[in-house]
């Protein structure tokens, strides 16, 4: 069983890493999802695969029976799944929004927040090289109009 888990971990890790190297944000997001699942398997293996009996103490018994599953990794994995659900949902929305705003999901095309040409020895040159599509400042006139 441990060998199988190790193989699954390796496969997911390799797949996730490969996808994250792609120049498409969607693939990066899926790659991150695979990576987090690889880690979930690692947690499962770290808790030792002991058995399949639910970890409940039988009436009258003082301790768990032999071959009882370790409940802690399951709780940890459940938490990790919930967190990766939230993060993945958010990253997919971000990719979608980026696609709508830029018309592409190539990370190399996203340069809006990047610094202008460096090194800039001259402040005026640096200011001129700033991307022009900044959010317009909330001018007093605009605020009064609103």
């Amino acid at each position, binding site marked *: 069983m441990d060998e199988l888990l190790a193989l699954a971990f390796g496969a997911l890790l390799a797949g996730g890493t490969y996808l994250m190297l792609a120049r498409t944000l969607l693939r990066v997001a899926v790659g991150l999802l695979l990576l987090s699942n690889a880690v979930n398997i690692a947690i499962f293996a770290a808790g030792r695969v002991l058995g399949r009996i639910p970890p409940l103490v039988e009436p009258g018994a003082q301790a768990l029976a032999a071959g009882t599953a370790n409940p802690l990794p399951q709780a940890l994995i459940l938490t990790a799944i*919930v967190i990766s659900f*939230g993060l993945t*949902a*958010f990253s997919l*929305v971000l990719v*979608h929004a980026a696609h709508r705003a830029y018309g592409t999901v190539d990370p190399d095309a996203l340069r809006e927040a990047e610094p202008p040409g460096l090194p800039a020895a001259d402040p005026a040159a640096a200011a001129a090289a700033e991307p022009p599509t900044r959010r317009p400042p909330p001018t007093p006139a605009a605020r009064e109009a609103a």
Partner: protein
Amino acid sequence: MTGSLILRTSARLLLVTCVLLSVFILVRGHNEPGGGFIGGLIGALGVIVYALAHGRARTLRMLRADPKSMLGVGLLLALASGALPPLLGISPLLTHQWGDLVLGPVALPLGTTLLFDIGVYLTVAGFALAVVLPFAEE
């Protein structure tokens, strides 16, 4: 109005099925596999299919409550389930209380865990909808 006639008709059926199934799974979580998290996701799934077919505005009208409010109410319920026992002086923080609600001949086993699960249900459904609905086509 988006989506074909088939999608629109089946979306309504799916919505009802998903919401009923999600409530069943929520309650089943008391003693069997199930619970608020997957219940909330299944419920949100039904609503998202509905939004695919009918657009965002109509979905929001159908929901009556905004997903953001659902999220907030869910968090409040979950917080209350942990905070009520110590506030009432029964037991320490984050412990749960169980008991039977006796209604004539039936005794319904209830616990503050159910309150927590309902809170999780609303939070998860609210989060999923708040994330997805803004991207539904009109």
